[in-house]
């Protein structure tokens, strides 16, 4: 591994300054579960690594003004350990919890998973489905952006030089609103998602869907918000024709590649399968909330 500089700022402003003024390639380090793998393999050769974990607020979960505020560098174990978040958005917690092993969970963060911008990132679909907003600090000050605007392609984000995500604002769910996340992998653990699906639904008293967001992962260069899938759910109960329409919409929206993890044909079919299974769980949970 090439020699590299290291900084561990203790405020957001300091982090922004260090990132903005870096002369070469600067990478943010939260959990390091992607960065260190890439460093070791030579895929990424940064000149500077900026550890954000010493900045107060970047690790932690709090409730404020109708939102869950999750620090950007909060590790997965903290998400799955937060009973309120797990009850409100089990799909988000599941998605994050599925990243790697228990050891990875001790480090991996939502911001890291998002900004690594793998099309198959497990925490991203449910986070987008919940209409989460990312709070970004940069040389121009703070700004907010919907999470779906962050990834622009595999390995690429819309963050400008000097910018970093500080926290995520997840809106608290309404009554009878809940989510689910499922992924398909060949083993039972430790694989990158071949397909991932996050669904957020709101039901009325009769079990009819009044709002929905369906997001697919690993079937396109970035996570896909499937409008037609949402339309298939809204105004309906989860009966056989609705499931069939949902399946078809999910398959339609899938534009995957064939690689060592799955073929185009396979990913497309499984997108439909997962959409049905994820919706079933989301509906059950929403009805119970």
């Amino acid at each position, binding site marked *: 591994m*090439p020699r590299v500089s290291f900084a561990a700022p203790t405020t957001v402003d300091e982090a922004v300054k260090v990132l903005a003024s870096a002369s070469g390639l600067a990478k943010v380090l939260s959990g390091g579960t992607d960065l260190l793998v890439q460093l070791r393999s030579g895929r990424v050769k940064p000149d500077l690594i900026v550890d954000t974990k010493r900045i107060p607020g970047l690790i932690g979960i709090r409730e404020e003004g109708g939102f869950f505020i999750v620090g950007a560098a909060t590790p997965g174990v903290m998400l799955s350990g937060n009973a309120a978040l797990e009850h409100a958005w089990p799909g988000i917690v599941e998605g994050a919890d599925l990243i790697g092993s228990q050891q990875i969970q001790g480090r991996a963060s939502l911001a890291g998973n998002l900004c690594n911008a793998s099309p198959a990132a497990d925490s991203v679909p449910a986070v987008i489905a919940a209409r989460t907003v990312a709070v970004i600090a940069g040389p121009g000050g703070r700004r907010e952006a919907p999470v779906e605007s962050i990834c622009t392609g595999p390995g690429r984000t819309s963050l400008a030089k000097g910018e970093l995500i500080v926290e995520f604002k997840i809106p608290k769910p309404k009554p009878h609103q809940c989510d689910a996340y499922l992924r398909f992998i060949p083993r039972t653990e430790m694989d990158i998602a071949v397909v991932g699906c996050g669904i957020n639904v709101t039901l009325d008293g009769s079990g009819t869907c009044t709002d929905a967001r369906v997001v697919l992962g690993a079937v396109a260069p970035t996570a896909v918000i499937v409008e037609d899938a949402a339309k298939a759910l809204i105004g309906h109960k989860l009966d056989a024709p609705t499931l069939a329409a949902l399946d078809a919409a999910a398959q339609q929206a899938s534009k995957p590649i064939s690689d060592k993890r799955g073929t185009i044909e396979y990913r497309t079919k499984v997108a439909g*399968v997962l959409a049905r299974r994820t919706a079933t769980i989301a509906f059950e949970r929403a009805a119970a909330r």
Partner: protein
Amino acid sequence: MTSSSEGLKVVGTRPVRPDGVDKVIGRANFGADMVMPGMLWGKMKRSPHAHARIKSINAAKALALPGVKAVVTAADFPDIASEEAFMGEGPMNFRDLSRNCMAKDKALYDGHAVAAVAATSASIAEEALDLIEVEYEVLPHVIDVEAAMADNAPLLHDDLFTQGVEPKPTKPSNIAKKIGFNKGDIAAGFAAAEIIIERRYTTQPVHQGYIEPHACVVAVAPDGQCTIWSSSQGHFMVRAYCAKLLGTEIANIRAMPAEIGGGFGGKTLVYLEPVALALSKKAGRPIKMVMSREEVFRGTGPTSGGVVEVKLGAKKDGHIVAAQLALKYQAGAFPGSPVGPGCMCGFAMYDIPNVAITGYDVVSNRPKVAAYRAPGAPISSFGVESCVDELARELKIDPLRLREMNAAKDGTKTAHGPTFVNIGYLQTVEAAKNHPHMKAKLGPNQGRGIASGFWFNIGGESSAACHINEDGTATIVEGSPDIGGSRASMAMMAAEALGISYERVRPVIGDTSSVGFTFLTGGSRVTFATGMAVTQAAEKVVVELKRRAAMIWDISPEAVEWKDGMAFPAGQNAGNFDPLSLADIALKSGRTGGPISAEVSINAQGAGPGFATHICDVEVDPETGHVKILRYTAIQDVGRAIHPSYVEGQIQGGVAQGIGWALNEEYVYDKNGRLDNPGFLDYRMPVCSDMPMIEPVMVEVPNPRHPFGAKGVGEVPIVPPMAAVANAIADAVGTRMRDLPMSPPKLRAALDEQNPPRMAAE
């Protein structure tokens, strides 16, 4: 000469292994844990091309980097003529081994070592690699075995002519050799058959997957004395191979066995040691070289992938009258696939009168294959055992009953020559029939598969010494690296022979200068052959102990008995003496003639083959093609379980590897012949949550040629699982998978072809 199990006091029990505490507290020293003062770090530069001529290598910039002390290439190794040496588990040609360790003239696979560097830190060595300039002329490459056999395939070696075909070919080929085994009259056999089925199966190369990457620390002194610390399956092999590749005498090398973090056959040859020695010689300092996981995948031998064509002819009542097998195994960059054993094992479980087997050893632009647990057999058995299952289904005969009907027994002559004696195959089939697993109910999308397996097991050369210490404890020095707990069994057998408690026997694995020649740890030979040597050494010591007691009592040695670790006068006439314990005699040894020790070197004959029958239950998710292993029972004839826990462990480990081979493991190459998945993320071995408990059932049909009846156990367990899983999937969803791995996308596609999907509703 087998003792009855009631009479044994230590053999058959489950004591804690003597190296156990060191291993659970992290103190045990593996290959990469050693340091030598002044050592440098060595790193290997590897070809990024699957096939290329090496036009030039310029290391000037690398040598100029501060901290770099030496660079070596093929020019630093002596030219070796082609020479066969059966030293490892499988054929080995020293010239090929040398060229595999360091490419000469041509890079033959993505990952092939082309140069190496030694520097004062690992990071400087890495930086130096980038500064070595290699000029390649990229050549067309070939990966797939049948593509490599085609007439117009890119040729790897222009001096490779197919052996085993007449007339002798004049054109070079990628087909290194053709072999065959025959029994009876195959044409007549098929003519007499009432049903014939013919099928084609394929498998992919899979890696042994040991968690410890290859590592060594070596030092070459100015007078040429070499010290090698490495983890391997045979330090005598390391010594011999390095001597050959470096062109030095064997006595100049002392190889020390580090603890080894898994081998499964993949560490029965050398990769790093010769290169590290060359660097050490040039730099004048010790060298440490450790492979990364990526290097392990790109640069070390997996086992072959292959094509398996099976044709079975049977009577309607299930008797198999004719069996034909054609195997095409890919050997990687140099000849030497395990197609021979693959041929020999294919039908070994069965008594079939007419058999014709053909095998091809084929090179292609992939890493040179290395042995992997019962090399060759899992591949051919996947085909044969699947085909036997397909035959059973066609005939509507229970798969266990079909095997019972055709089972090899004592007196069955194999297609490859030997006649079986003291085998336990039928016993494993009977045990399977009677096992409660066969009665467990299956639900929707669940199925059960049966498969059998065979492996020869070998004996071979082993040395061992038994030293009695002054306080009556014993030290056993043997030369077999312990890959699975064997040193515990050595201590147990010695304790049994000496008649003392296990706790008073300490086993040690001696380096090449401290114990006699011992063939490597492989072929399921250690408990059999080294166990035999250890037992014989202990028995020689007992003879000497009796002689010393006789001296003390001033009677004839014939009048002394040895029982439970004590000398007794044999009967009234011998004299009325109190028994002498081993400790008593040891204390007096200086006055009765000196140290009490015996060393034995043998070439153990009479290894008993291993047979197994496995039962596997799966559940298939038809929408995703995901397969879950619900339950697995592995029944095996183990001869005698010296330490039952470690025998069970061998069975369970082999099963898990077979399941990975069946479901998800494979090498993925891109169109440039570069390996796409050189890591544990995308080379998918079973993880904890993928596996159920594995029930090992040990059937004991003792081998009378071993002092305690042991047969080799380590390799048979990996032979049946792939077919067991495939047969279970066929039972569950009616889909026959003939191409490994049976990964979800392939299973889903096969299911869709069988039942074209409608738009499904939950």
